[in-house]
């Protein structure tokens, strides 16, 4: 596909890309540390993935294959539009297949298919500061990161247990990267937290409105915060996926009619489709 006339490759000008790449290099050098960068106005509103798009634009090359997912699916509005944006401005290949992608931009999920070396995950982050909930002052949160004063993150989890009997934080669950910086993993479900630990892929996080970039280099330790007597746990379901029968993937509950009908299906559409193609079936198919 030919690229749009009048735009630089991947929309951003080369100076901006250099600036973002420098921020990315710094972020990779200090895992989990939030690097400020000069976030640009993008042709879509804040909150729609401007941070992730800028990171993707800065690392994208003509030989890359891009996959964009929103809530695990490749065919939702946000994903379709970001993918076509890069098709128009960069003209590189795109895919729905996790295995074929060299760059995967996401907001809510990490694909179920294990990532491999050489792949890059780009997360769109709304609120990069995990301490913001208890400390509104930016100067103070930076100091707390600098001195590794992370007691208040524990206070947040304490509150969960005190009110609900268990750690009820289900997404954006705080993690400690490489034993040092506490980091907000963007709104992925805590189900995906273990996938970040020692991942062979490079993970980059971009927050456009908040103007921060941070990163987890490949094979880096990522621990979810918890208490000794309330250890970190991921979600589990009674059902398997109604379409592909997978019992170990993250399931979405879908209301099918107005009579209380509902089904549970894989949130990762590519993973689900691959399993169906390989002959797996769920109760929906079997019935």
């Amino acid at each position, binding site marked *: 596909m030919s690229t749009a006339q009048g735009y630089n490759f991947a929309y951003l000008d080369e100076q901006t890309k250099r600036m973002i790449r420098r921020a990315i290099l710094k972020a990779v050098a200090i895992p989990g540390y939030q690097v400020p960068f000069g976030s640009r106005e993008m042709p879509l509103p804040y909150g729609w993935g401007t941070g992730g798009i800028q990171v993707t634009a800065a690392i994208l090359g003509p030989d890359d294959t891009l996959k964009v997912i929103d809530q695990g699916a490749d065919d939702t509005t946000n994903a379709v539009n970001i993918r076509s944006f890069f098709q128009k401005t960069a003209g590189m290949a795109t895919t729905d297949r996790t295995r074929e992608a060299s760059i995967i931009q996401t907001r809510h999920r990490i694909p179920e298919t294990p990532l491999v070396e050489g792949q890059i995950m780009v997360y769109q982050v709304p609120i990069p500061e995990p301490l913001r909930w*208890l400390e509104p002052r930016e100067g103070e949160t930076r100091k707390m990161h600098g*001195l590794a*004063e992370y*007691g*208040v993150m*524990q*206070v*947040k989890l*304490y*509150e969960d*247990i*005190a*009110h609900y009997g268990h750690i009820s934080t289900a997404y954006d669950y705080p993690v400690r990267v490489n034993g040092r910086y506490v980091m907000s993993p963007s709104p992925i479900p805590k189900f995906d937290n273990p996938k970040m630990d020692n991942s062979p892929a490079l993970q980059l996080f971009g927050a456009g409105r908040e103007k921060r970039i941070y990163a987890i280099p490949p094979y880096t330790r990522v621990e979810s915060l*918890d*208490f*000794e*007597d*309330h250890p970190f746990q991921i979600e589990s379901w009674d059902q398997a996926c109604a379409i592909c029968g997978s019992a170990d993937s993250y399931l979405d509950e879908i209301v099918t009619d107005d009579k209380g009908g509902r089904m549970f299906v894989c949130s990762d559409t590519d993973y689900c489709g691959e399993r169906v193609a390989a002959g797996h079936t769920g109760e929906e198919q079997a019935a």
Partner: protein
Amino acid sequence: MNKLLQVTDLSKNYGSRIGCEGVAFDLYPGEVLGIVGESGSGKTTLLRCLSAQLEPSAGRIAYDMRTQGLTDIWSLSEPERRMLMRTDWGIVHQNARDGLRMEVSAGANVGERLMAVGARHYGNIRTEAEDWLTKVEIDTGRIDDLPATFSGGMQQRLQIARNLVTQPRLVFMDEPTSGLDVSVQARLLDLIRTLVNRLGIACVIVTHDLGVVRLLAHRLMVMRRGRVVEHGLTDQVLDDPQHPYTQLLVSSILPV
């Protein structure tokens, strides 16, 4: 006995204005020092300097660190000083809202310092929090309630529990009883006195209420216009004031 706190020639200027000037005193473990004076006399400035919330313009504040003896607190690195402030020291603010996290429960408020120094066992933190709520006479049934639902006196007691949970050796209190009605004040004073006596905590209390210092303080400093005008044992200063300003202050107490 070793000095716990040694203050020499402490001054704080706000531009050309004087906050406090030439303050010097020693504080020993378990001792309660009262600082009195009218509004604007520099009491709170002095307390904020002493408790490392405000950097003094001149002078030295040395604290008896558990590991290294008397050390100038401004020669410590910032992490060391912040660690000192939330472990070996306590700071009780005049307004409980300044000292509490209003958006988390009472239990989390008490447990925060424990978690800050590395406690990671929910059950133990909670037991400790319940224990301290009992000590400051707050019903343990309110442990999961927000401090905003507490009365003024309860908030002040919660603030005290939150500070004492790490067993500090020195607590700074800025007008801990102002804004409370008389009977609640009396109960709070009684509580502070009992806790300070039982735990052997040294205390610096700033107040404009002479009744408070008579009840709590062993020694008294009277401040006026940023300077200490009289310094001595509490009963001595209150019963036989030497400085004209102290005489005025003592005679201004309304007889009941």
